[in-house]
């Protein structure tokens, strides 16, 4: 029995993959039916609220909860005493590693409060008012300690120490004194000293980026219920409900099999919902109160207590020959990790020079703790910071050498066979194609006026695969139920449904995709790393293979055929040779009618550890205008070209490009955590933390480049991370083009731009 390659082959030659199909979750989302984290409720539920540290750094001398517990309506109060301490053990957390010893301290402070907003206690009560009153009755005695926020200040020898048991890893000899520098890492390729000796031009600059938040619109929310026998259920807005299950079971000493987590619809995550905050608290409170407990963060809590990304200081030194060949590259990256080690400096180091073919590279990175919330992943974690600095210097070299910036990038671009600074050689990649695509746009060739500037920058992200489990079930009427175990953030359901439709030869609208809970499928790693569509579609292909093999076997028995007389082709099991004269092909719908009589339900489980993720490169082009009187920068036009490998659902891929670009615009121009001298965040709200809104940006134009990933059955590459990488550099380059001023500190907000213009005397009225 044979199965020819049936990819993208419907019974009528129709293909869903690569088309702009209607989104299966679209109607619910535009009509308000979709249920997000805070929309879930249970009978008898209590309100959970968190008491948070008012200090950036303080020893917790004592916590007295007796008055709060005695308040009528309060059903449970929890503190550090409700969470057993954890040994030092590293686990993956998004793109970074986290230590359970730190996780337990992050969800509930133990010895010290390490940042303003650090959870110190939590209550469950019958009303919001009672919960708030109970928080005020909890008596915490603090010994306030000196704090440190900035990364360079935290690295100083006399800086206030966050952890007296943190010794810098990665240096020899091993330090005998604790430090805020958790780790030093480096990568080396070739001989940078010899490379710089060959350079005709060396540009050496230092950059500083502000800490920013992922800014998801939906705040963290969790609802938990624990029964008397310990069976636990949790509904939460998360990028990975299997990860939530694992963390909660570990932190609370529960059997994983007794914990069932459902991922609600998610209103954005961008990496920030790859870790746990409220979930273990809600479960602990429910266990104590013996009633369901619902917790929802305020926006202020989101800013103060959930993972932003690092602020950083980056030094970049790049050498080139006079004809534009990059010959040596050095960088030193210092990233804030927040209160606990584990910044994204490692990928920052690896990505810094990834877009370029350079023989001699040396990049050093430092992971540094300071009195800020523990950073969480944020889209291509670490890469926007380091690549912003590199892309700024690349642009400066282009200008100094008088070479077109796209041409300079093209001359040095990584190609298939290029040895990346972090080790391996690239397979087929599409950086050149993105540069060519940008150069061919009408946008690139449109003239600009005074105070307008144009900038270009490229970016890279690795992409990953990972553990994935999906199921396909053929229903009695021939429709297909598809279950995935990774939350749908950016179009997963539509993308997987298209693949399932094409694999099984059924119309797209006959496939109904859902996101299953942790009790419904085998383990799934989270939605992150640009993996869910890549890995999920591979798993769908595997599940469909099982179904097709089953149907071929059933047809063989029905037709009393020999194995070589039956094959799967063009969406149906087909008889071959003389048999084709006697029987008709059977589709999935045909088998559905006789499923019971031919062996029972038809289903396939795809379970893989997906490998072969192909990196995605992108190039962005931006036009902007600087207002010399106010320093305000207005984005006039923006074009993204990025390699998707194969766009399963082009509209969703374009959405990823647009969303990443807009987040990058915010990072470049306005967003920043502003701390007072007291170490407290001064702009914990969207009025003062300025994210771009629709009226701030033009339509983001997109160019889909498709250089197939040979390791994926459809050629897919992850697309969600890369588009946030180039905007920072592209905008800095455009502002330089408009004003002649090279800005080396983000955000390039109106006060900074105005000051720079004023200092240079560029905005005087003539």
């Amino acid at each position: 029995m044979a199965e020819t390659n049936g990819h993208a082959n419907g019974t009528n030659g129709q293909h869903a993959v690569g088309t702009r199909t209607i989104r299966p979750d679209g109607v619910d989302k535009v009509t308000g039916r979709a249920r997000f984290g805070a929309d879930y409720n249970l009978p008898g539920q209590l309100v959970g609220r968190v008491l948070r540290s008012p200090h950036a750094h303080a020893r917790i001398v004592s916590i007295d909860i007796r008055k709060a517990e005695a308040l009528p309506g309060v059903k449970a109060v929890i503190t550090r005493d409700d969470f057993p301490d954890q040994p030092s053990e590293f686990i993956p957390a998004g793109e970074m590693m986290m230590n359970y010893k730190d996780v337990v301290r992050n969800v509930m402070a133990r010895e010290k409060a390490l940042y303003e907003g650090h959870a110190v206690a939590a209550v469950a009560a019958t009303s919001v008012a009672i919960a708030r009153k109970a928080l005020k009755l909890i008596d915490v005695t603090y010994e306030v300690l000196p704090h440190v926020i900035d990364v360079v200040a935290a690295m100083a020898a006399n800086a206030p120490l966050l952890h007296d048991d943190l010794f810098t890893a990665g240096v020899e000899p091993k330090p005998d004194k604790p430090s805020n520098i958790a780790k030093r890492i480096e990568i080396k390729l070739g001989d940078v000293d010899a490379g710089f000796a060959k350079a005709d031009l060396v540009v050496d600059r230092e950059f500083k980026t502000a800490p920013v938040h992922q800014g998801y619109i939906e705040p963290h929310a969790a609802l938990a219920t624990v029964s008397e026998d310990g069976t636990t259920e949790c509904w939460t807005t998360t990028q990975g409900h299997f990860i939530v299950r694992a963390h909660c079971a570990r932190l609370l000493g529960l059997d994983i099999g007794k914990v069932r987590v459902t991922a609600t619809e998610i209103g954005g995550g961008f990496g920030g919902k790859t870790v746990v905050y409220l979930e273990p608290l809600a479960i602990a409170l429910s266990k104590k109160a013996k009633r369901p407990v619902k917790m929802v963060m305020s926006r202020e809590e989101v800013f103060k207590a959930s993972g932003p990304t690092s602020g950083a200081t980056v030094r970049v030194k790049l050498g080139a020959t006079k004809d534009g060949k990059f010959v040596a590259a050095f960088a030193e990256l210092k990233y804030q990790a927040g209160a606990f080690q584990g910044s994204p400096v490692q990928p920052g180091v690896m990505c810094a020079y990834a877009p370029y073919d350079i023989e001699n590279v040396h990049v050093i990175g430092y992971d540094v703790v300071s009195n800020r919330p523990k950073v969480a992943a944020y889209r291509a974690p670490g890469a926007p910071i380091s690549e912003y600095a590199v892309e700024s210097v690349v642009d400066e070299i282009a200008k100094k050498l008088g070479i077109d910036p796209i041409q300079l990038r093209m001359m040095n671009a990584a190609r298939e066979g290029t040895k990346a600074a972090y080790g391996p050689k690239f397979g087929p990649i599409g950086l050149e194609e993105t540069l060519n695509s940008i150069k061919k746009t009408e946008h690139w060739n449109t003239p600009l006026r005074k105070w307008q500037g144009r900038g270009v920058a490229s970016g890279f992200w690795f992409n990953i695969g990972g553990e994935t489990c999906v199921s396909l079930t053929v229903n009695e009427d021939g429709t297909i139920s598809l279950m995935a175990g990774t939350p749908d953030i950016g179009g997963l359901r539509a993308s997987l449904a298209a693949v399932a439709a094409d694999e099984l030869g059924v119309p797209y609208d006959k496939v109904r995709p859902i996101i299953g809970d942790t009790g419904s499928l085998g383990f799934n790693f989270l939605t992150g790393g640009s993996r869910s569509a890549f890995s999920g579609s591979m798993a769908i292909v595997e599940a469909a293979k099982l179904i097709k093999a089953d149907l071929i076997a059933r047809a063989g028995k029905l037709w009393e055929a020999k194995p070589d007389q039956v094959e799967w082709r063009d969406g149906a099991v087909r008889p071959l040779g003389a048999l084709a004269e006697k029987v008709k092909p059977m589709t999935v719908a045909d088998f559905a009618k006789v499923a019971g009589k031919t062996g029972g339900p038809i289903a396939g489980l795809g379970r893989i550890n997906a490998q072969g993720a192909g990196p995605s490169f992108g190039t962005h082009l931006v036009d902007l205008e600087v207002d010399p009187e106010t320093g305000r920068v207005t984005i006039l036009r923006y074009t993204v070209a990025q390699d998707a490998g194969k766009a399963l659902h082009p509209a969703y891929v374009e959405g990823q490009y647009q969303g990443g670009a807009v987040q990058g615009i915010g990072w470049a121009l306005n967003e920043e955590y502003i701390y007072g001298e007291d170490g407290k965040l001064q702009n914990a709200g969207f009025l003062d933390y300025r994210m771009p809104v629709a009226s701030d940006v033009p339509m983001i134009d997109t160019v889909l480049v498709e250089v197939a990933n040979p390791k994926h059955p459809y050629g897919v590459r992850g697309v969600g991370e890369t588009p946030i990488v180039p905007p920072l550099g592209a905008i800095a380059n455009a502002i330089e083009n408009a004003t002649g001023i090279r800005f080396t500190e983000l955000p390039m907000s109106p006060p900074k731009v105005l000051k720079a213009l004023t200092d240079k005397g560029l905005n005087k009225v003539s």
Partner: protein
Amino acid sequence: MARVVLIGNLAQLTGGVAEFDLSATSVKQLFEQLSALHPGIERHLEDGVAVAIDGQIVQDALFEPIGPRSEVFIMPAIAGGR
């Protein structure tokens, strides 16, 4: 023999040796052989690293084959935030 290169700080766990010629035919054997040579690296391999075999990055894939002339890089694990 496959050429094996340790990227970044991993060589600090092997006395500064960053390159090896090993007869491993799978990632599992690669980890076993490296751990036998340098026991200090074993836990780091278990905690999660990425392995690039002839340019292709794999993670948590003990049975992934390694050819006799493969070029193998062992590097920190990679994930992502989207």
